[in-house]
């Protein structure tokens, strides 16, 4: 029974599980496939949209697996976390071996004698070629170590040992990018502000609907859209803003699409624009009399003559209804004491619509104010992302283009006054490249050996 393999302790088993390359491959494939799934199922739609597309049962499955917000679902994040753990443990597991390979004493390599890949015979004793072989090897590969075996002189050189670290650079870059995303999620925030021309705001609406104070204020001086010549295609959206800190103007900036501005680590992006209704002036028509009144959003206004009260619900500066009507329109909430409130539509005077209800309203003036919609974010993780991305590209470059090559040159006496030159090499990738290098070295040894 002594040969029954002992089950390793749990810690070691978990370590080995996360150190396996098979796990990396599986995780990468699963991540790729599930990511694609997330593009096939529309994300963050309303519940009814899913019911319409996938039926009741389908929707229940989607909800249970959080497929409607897949990239933020716990299981997806868990997969990413597994990948991170996998990368770290894989790296820790292999790094010591790699470092040992890199730091290996050339003298130890010198004694190895890999299979000869190129050979030729030259006139002259081995010693007469030694210096030249050394120079060629030095130029083609690098630092040469020389030694003797019983008969032969052996030269050894290597280059690109550091390239074995390329894969660790890639792993590190993934971890840094993930760190950046986490840092951004924890310590960053994102939201938006709709700001009227001339208005000063010191807080934003976060994506979850809450207000967040900025600690400074922003004033929109002016918003403008410019168009390409002779067309309706916008060429530029631009907001001229002023940053105020403790009441003092500290910075002026122009926000354009693709050209954000930053103050105290908070970035402001031009995102949208539109018109807010500032003030609505109407005539109240009640019992044959007309009275001018100003209506507002969010505040009931008492009408003269005890005609009740009214509030502005919604207004458009310009609506087109074919030949029938063209001009401003507003929806107004109206209530007489002791009865249910109702919604009435108002147009400018003389509009060909019959009045409904006890009163009617005629629009006298609709003042609109331009607003600019800004996306606002603070992301302290973004520099991790850029550093990680750069490292990743560099790491891939090293991994694919730099190889750890070792080259041996053996010079053996071959009969009277002749030398046998043997070339051998080893590499961790791109064997064809090594083969070409050996061929070139062989040719160089032969070509000028007569000189």
């Amino acid at each position, binding site marked *: 029974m002594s040969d029954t393999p002992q089950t390793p302790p749990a810690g070691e088993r978990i370590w080995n599980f996360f150190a396996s390359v098979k796990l990396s491959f599986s995780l990468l494939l699963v991540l790729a496939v599930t990511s694609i799934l997330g593009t096939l199922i529309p994300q963050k739609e309303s519940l009814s949209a899913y019911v319409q597309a996938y039926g009741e049962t389908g929707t229940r499955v989607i909800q249970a697996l959080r497929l409607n917000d897949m990239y933020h679902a716990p299981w997806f994040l868990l997969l990413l976390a597994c990948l991170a753990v996998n990368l770290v443990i894989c790296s820790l597991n292999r790094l010591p071996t790699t470092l040992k390979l890199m730091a290996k004493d050339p003298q130890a390599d010198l004694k190895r004698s890999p299979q000869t890949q190129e050979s030729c015979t030259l006139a002259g004793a081995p010693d007469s070629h030694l210096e030249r072989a050394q120079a060629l090897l030095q130029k083609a590969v690098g630092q040469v170590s020389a030694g003797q075996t019983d008969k032969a002189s052996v030269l050894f050189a290597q280059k690109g040992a550091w390239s074995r670290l390329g894969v660790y650079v890639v792993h590190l870059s993934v971890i840094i990018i993930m760190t950046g995303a986490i840092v951004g999620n924890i310590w960053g925030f994102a939201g938006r502000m709709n700001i009227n021309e001339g208005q000063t705001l010191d807080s934003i609406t976060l994506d979850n609907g809450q207000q967040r104070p900025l600690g400074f204020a922003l004033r929109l001086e002016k918003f403008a859209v410019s168009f390409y010549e002779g067309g309706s295609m916008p060429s530029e959206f631009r907001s001229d803003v002023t940053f105020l800190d403790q009441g003092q103007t500290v910075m002026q900036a122009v926000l354009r699409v693709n050209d954000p501005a930053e103050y105290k680590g908070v970035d402001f992006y031009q995102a949208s624009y539109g018109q807010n209704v500032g003030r609505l002036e109407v005539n109240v028509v009640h019992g044959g009399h007309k009275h001018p009144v100003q209506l507002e959003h969010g505040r009931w206004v008492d009408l003269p003559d005890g005609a009740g009260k009214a509030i502005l619900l919604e207004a458009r500066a310009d609506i087109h209804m074919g030949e029938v009507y063209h001009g401003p329109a507003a929806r107004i909430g109206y209530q007489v004491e002791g009865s249910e409130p109702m919604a009435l539509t108002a147009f400018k005077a003389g509009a060909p619509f019959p009045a409904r209800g006890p009163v009617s309203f005629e629009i006298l003036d609709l003042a609109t104010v331009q607003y600019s919609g800004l996306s606002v974010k603070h992301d302290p993780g973004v520099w991790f992302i850029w550093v990680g991305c750069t490292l990743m590209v560099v790491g891939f470059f090293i991994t*694919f*283009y730099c190889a750890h090559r070792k080259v041996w040159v053996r010079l053996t006496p071959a009969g009277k006054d002749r030398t046998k030159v043997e070339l051998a090499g080893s590499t961790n990738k791109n064997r064809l490249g090594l083969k070409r290098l050996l061929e070139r070295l062989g040719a160089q040894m032969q070509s000028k050996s007569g000189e």
Partner: protein
Amino acid sequence: MEALSNTLAVAVTFAYLGISVAYLGGWIIKKATFLGRLATLGLWLALMAHTASIVLRWLASHDLGFGHAPFSNLFESLVFFGWTLALLYLIIEIKTGDKRMGAFAVPLAFFAMLYALKLDPAIKPLLPALKSNWLIAHVITCFLGYAGFGVSAALSVMYLVTGQAKDPEGHKALVLDDLIYQNVVVGFILLTAGIVTGSIWANSAWGTYWSWDPKETWSSACCLRTSA
């Protein structure tokens, strides 16, 4: 200028077809080595005309008053894709001296251009979100990457058609295998760089470097798939 650019694009498209046929002829009819030389010469000329077409388009957009680099829509991207395919193939031909690959690689350039010709070639002004140097870098890196994958796919077809799989250790098979690998690597690194430049652009336009939109997700899925 715009008209000349478009005419050149049409001419180049059919030149690629002719050149493909010449490469194919040179490969099948072993004695007709002049066909191969003709094809190479033709390809150089076509590439020059292709370059001229792209440059003229660039200049024309400036004449229209809203100059922008000609990498802004599908038409321009495909024309650029065809250009990178032709260029990459010519570089490989110079390095290896093997003209047979032209019969597999140049048709790709032809089909890319043919697809482009079916689209509206009008030069249009750019939407504000597309006005970014990072976008230009993004398009260039991505399409160079696509060209790398395209050429490697063409070479893989050649590998199979010419029966290299029977003798995978043969010299020709090894050389071809190496070329395919090199092209995939170039494609992979450039696509990675393409995703990065795309991210930088998105960060400056929308304030987010990644928003899990379908295109981003697919590209990262391709990236993961390739690296696995």
